[in-house]
């Protein structure tokens, strides 16, 4: 069971504040969803490998490069990337070179 304290702790980890109403709703919803998820414990998985992604299991070999689908290597060469001004174009606040943010440490 998730408690109110858990909700506060997880909200902190996730950088969410949540209103009082949102916290109450979250407590109810998380418990209902986790209650449903409980059914996974009906399965004995002690001898089953975890599967993090599809490509690891179905890594199809490439006919052209001999490499696999899972681990793709490329030469470490300098290539064009997004120009600085375009990369900054959506920033809420900049000084022209860097992203500006509020104070990190209070003095």
């Amino acid at each position, binding site marked *: 069971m*998730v408690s109110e304290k*858990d*909700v506060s*702790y*997880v*909200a902190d*980890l*996730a*950088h*969410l*504040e*949540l209103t009082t109403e*949102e916290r109450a*709703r*979250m407590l109810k*919803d*998380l418990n*209902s*969803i*986790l209650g*449903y*998820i*409980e*059914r*996974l*414990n009906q*399965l004995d*998985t002690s001898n*089953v*490998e*975890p*599967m*993090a*992604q*599809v*490509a690891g*299991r*179905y890594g*199809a070999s*490439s*006919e*052209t*490069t001999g*490499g696999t*689908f899972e681990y*793709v290597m*490329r030469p470490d060469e300098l290539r064009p990337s*997004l120009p600085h001004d*375009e*990369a900054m*174009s*959506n*920033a*809420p606040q900049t000084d022209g070179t860097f*992203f500006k*943010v*509020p*104070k*990190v440490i*209070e003095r």
Partner: protein
Amino acid sequence: MNIELLTVHSARTAVLEKQITATALVDAFYQKIEAEDPAIGAYLTLCKDRAHRQAERVDALADKGDALSPLAGVPIAIKDVLATKGVRTTAGSKILDNFISPYDATAVARLEAAGAIVLGKTNCDEFAMGSSNENSGFHPVKNPRDHSRVPGGSSGGSAAVVAAGTAVASLGSDTGGSIRQPGAFCGVVGLKPTYGRVSRYGLIAFASSLDHVGPFGKTVKDVALILQHMAGRDPLDSTSADLPVPNYMQQVGEPVKGLRVGVPTEYFGEGLDPEVRAAVEAGIQELAKAGCEIVSVSLPHTEYAIPTYYLIATAEASANLARFDGVRYGIRAKEAKTLAEMYCKTRDAGFGTEVKRRIMLGTYALSSGYYDAYYLKAQRVRSLLARDFDEAYAQVDVIVTPTTPTPAFKLGEKSDDPLAMYLADIYTVTANLVGVPGITVPCGNSKGGLPIGLQILGKHFDEATVLRTAHVVEHALAEKVG
């Protein structure tokens, strides 16, 4: 010209044979969108300048008598989770309300290189999280077949524009059924390719091990054509497979005699609407008539797919959505005094309820003390689900199921019950966990006139057989679907 009826093939032919210029075609679509879309709400942003520039390029080539590219002049729409250079790209979220993408997603760039014309960006559940489109940060989309019902989600806008004829075809994304479920609800064809078949560069990430890009169309041939021109290795996406892309169009229309079609008992059990069952069984009958061998198979871990999915998808989402912090793009809360406060206030204001719920669930599942019990457990069950499919595919070539347990539900019907909403994806999530391709094709209508979808799942990288099978169902049932 009735533009509502145009397919990818007939739209290109119309331009090629100069029945209409690409520019006039684009204008006709914008007129239709402006007249009809406000009642449906499928478009979030129109990109008229970009569409007109592309139409002029096509027309100039046509005037010179040059060979036209394979999708030349075909007006399409793009789900707003795919980046489009110089065009607002929101992922259906207020947190990206003002985001203008500085680059194009590979799938979009490839379709444009093949001559397609992007009309605009379609509405969706916020960050593709939802099964009804009611989680859009902007407004819900209505099902063009019945405005009191949802179009499905999360790619509801992309399904709706094809159903309404306000685009010829479209792109969506599918993380747990987000192409196939709305495809079924709106009565159109929707394809989720194999994991690795289509580049995801420029797709705003929801759950990276489950996210796929795929097409919607009016016909199986249309989705085959769109897939043809976006599939294949992309150096910008290390998870795209370096495998040859077959000629899909050549295989659509080929006979299916002797094909082994698996019917999994677990997909026809409790919770399946009787009308959906009857329509899907009629589709299976048609495959038998066409010479397929129908084989009963078992996917014994099916009932564990939804809980597995909602742990893995939310865990990955909580990590992927950490980037939305008000620093580099999107909105920023103004009143914050410290950096930490700015992060929280920005995310509180920018994210909707469902997105916050999933971030919370995912963060919880990954948090210290719970990681093994939830996240790792789900990854182990994911292996069992993959094993189910390995065993079934040792006996059969494709698997046929209903796409959804019921036809489209009413707006508001499930919006207060997240668990009930999650169960709308019960037949679609497994294909994402296992990575196999899947298509939905209309197979009938309910008595109330709502479309019903039949799902065909194939082996990894065997979209060709999936398309071939879907084409047979589509043609056999054309009269029933109407």
